């Protein structure tokens, strides 16, 4: 977990548009504004983390990014194309380029793991059933679930569900994968293996990764860049390399406190 993350695929001089452009986004639900005036860019191939304490709006922001909630104001663009302002048909067409790993996995309980992974292929490609099943088997093997293809979600552990959900998220070889608290509820070893899996996929395919997390170990080992949200400010309070932010002298105490290693945080001071 101590190695430095590899560089994102593009460089600052890369003329390609950012994978994600968020401008003055207002997020909320049921009339409550959770975040306002949120703006940031995510470069192609970047491992981008959205961090912050519980209840600061990380998952809410993610739901707005992928179109599960409509923003009150502002816009989201993917690869230069409008998304949040686009009509439903255009949004659904763009969604084929994304994968999403939900906090609880969100596998379809009535389908086997193979069927779960094959469903996006069935819906969005003209592949034969045999090809779909082969791809599903391959994706499940990539996440270490070879031999579990015909199991149902209720028959596997929480960590395996997360991995199966990751295989499903990767089924269409998406350009962007969103992760909502991938380590939540996992033991440290399983969590670390999942982190390694995520890194491996990014390094192999150059996939842009957007990860919501408050797991310090994952943030410091995986993230190229983070934005930190704050509940009171209802917006971004910091943006940058998390290791530099953690090492910086002075600065916002909220950021320092959040990025303080657990061992240090629990040290009894005289």
């Amino acid at each position: 977990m101590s190695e430095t993350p590899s560089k994102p695929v593009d460089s600052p001089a890369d003329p390609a548009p950012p994978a994600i452009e968020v401008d003055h986004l207002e997020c909320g639900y049921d009339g409550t504004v959770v975040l306002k005036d949120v703006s940031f860019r995510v470069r192609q191939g970047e491992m981008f983390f959205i961090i912050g304490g519980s209840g600061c709006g990380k998952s809410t922001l993610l739901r707005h990014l992928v179109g599960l909630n409509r923003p009150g104001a502002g816009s989201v663009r993917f690869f230069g194309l409008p998304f949040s302002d686009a009509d439903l048909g255009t949004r659904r067409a763009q969604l084929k380029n994304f994968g999403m790993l939900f906090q609880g996995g969100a596998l379809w309980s009535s389908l086997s793991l193979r069927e779960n992974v094959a469903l996006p292929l069935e819906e969005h490609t003209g592949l034969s059933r045999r090809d779909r099943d082969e791809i599903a088997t391959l994706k499940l093997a990539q996440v270490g679930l070879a031999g579990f293809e015909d199991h149902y979600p209720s028959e596997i552990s929480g960590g395996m569900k997360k991995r199966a959900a990751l295989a499903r998220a990767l089924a269409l070889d998406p350009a962007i994968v969103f992760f909502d608290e991938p380590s939540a509820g996992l033991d440290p070893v399983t969590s670390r293996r999942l982190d390694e899996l995520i890194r491996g996929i990014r390094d192999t395919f150059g996939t842009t990764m957007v990860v919501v997390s408050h797991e310090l170990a994952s943030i410091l080992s995986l993230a190229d860049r983070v934005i930190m949200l704050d509940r009171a400010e209802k917006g971004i309070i910091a943006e940058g390399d998390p290791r530099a932010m953690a090492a910086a002298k002075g600065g916002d105490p909220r950021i320092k406190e959040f990025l303080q290693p657990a061992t240090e945080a629990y040290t009894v001071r005289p």
Partner: protein
Amino acid sequence: MPGEAQSIPAAASVRTEGGALEVAVSGAWRLTGTCPSWNDAVAGLAPAAVRFRSEGIGKWDTSLLIFAFDAQQWCEAAGVPCDPSGLPAKAVTLLAQLGSSHPSSLPHERSDSFLFTTGVAAWKAWGSLREIFHFIGECALGAAGMVRRSKKFRWRDCIDQMQECGAMGLPIVSLISFLVGLTLAYQAAVELRKFGADIFVADVVGLSTVREMGPMMTAVILAGRTGAAFAATLGNMKANEEIDALETLGIPAVDFLVLPRLLALGLMMPLLVLYANCVGILGGMVVAAGILQIPPSAYWIETQGSIGLADINTGLVKAVTFGLLIGLAGCLRGLQAERSAVGVGRAATSAVVTSILLIILADSVYAVVFHILGV
């Protein structure tokens, strides 16, 4: 000795010293045990100050804090100083926390005026109506899309649902339909016998079953059985983010989850109603044979003469409508469910209530329409 203090019950002894009240707390203070109350301890006394001692105290919990807090409140009201420093140090800290949190923990007024509540309810009802029409429109568009690309239709799910709401529902439909036919025949027999018109029991049972009771009772059974199941399944899927997972993959939940269920119910309801009609007529036949001594063959011939194809068709038209309404209500309530166990339960209840309401509403409309058409 601390060990001894654990077995001694909680006590608070008071003594007055120079106008100040010294309260000595001792023994084991447990919320689950018997603890002294401050009002009893201070009864009949009017001290100029209150202070605590706790040398003889054993284990203590929140009960000690409540005692000390009551003392503080009493002192504040009486305008006398209170010194809790003689209590265990951790209890003093917690007491300070309790004191600071107390003003903010007062319950706030949650009741609203009648006008406000009525306005909110009306607004919600309007929103709910809009959601129903929006959902119907979404289903219609989804169905039109599916006609164009029928290969994408989830036929396997549809067949599973057909088995679930059709074949699996046969036992309960049989029982209820038989009993309804039986009851109708009994009721009719009592009156018709007075006029020597026993044989017309077959007409009453046949017509009322085929035109009204068959479709209606089958629909009510399916509303409770299948509509609630649809709402619970979809509600649970929503709580587990399975529906969000579909949406993020660009797969409309309506196409994937709702249309197979609607089609299954739309196809199975007429078949179930035909079956229910037969069983209902059989129920009437049993009463006719057993009570009125009408031979089954005579009963059957009378039934055939009284029921026309138009009567059967009206029942089937109702059956298809009721089936679609149950499916729509069940799926809509499931998709609207809150993301919690309570939300899923509410969705199932709401699906049954909405289904039955819509069934009766549609039945009334059909009664008028069929009357106008002369069917």
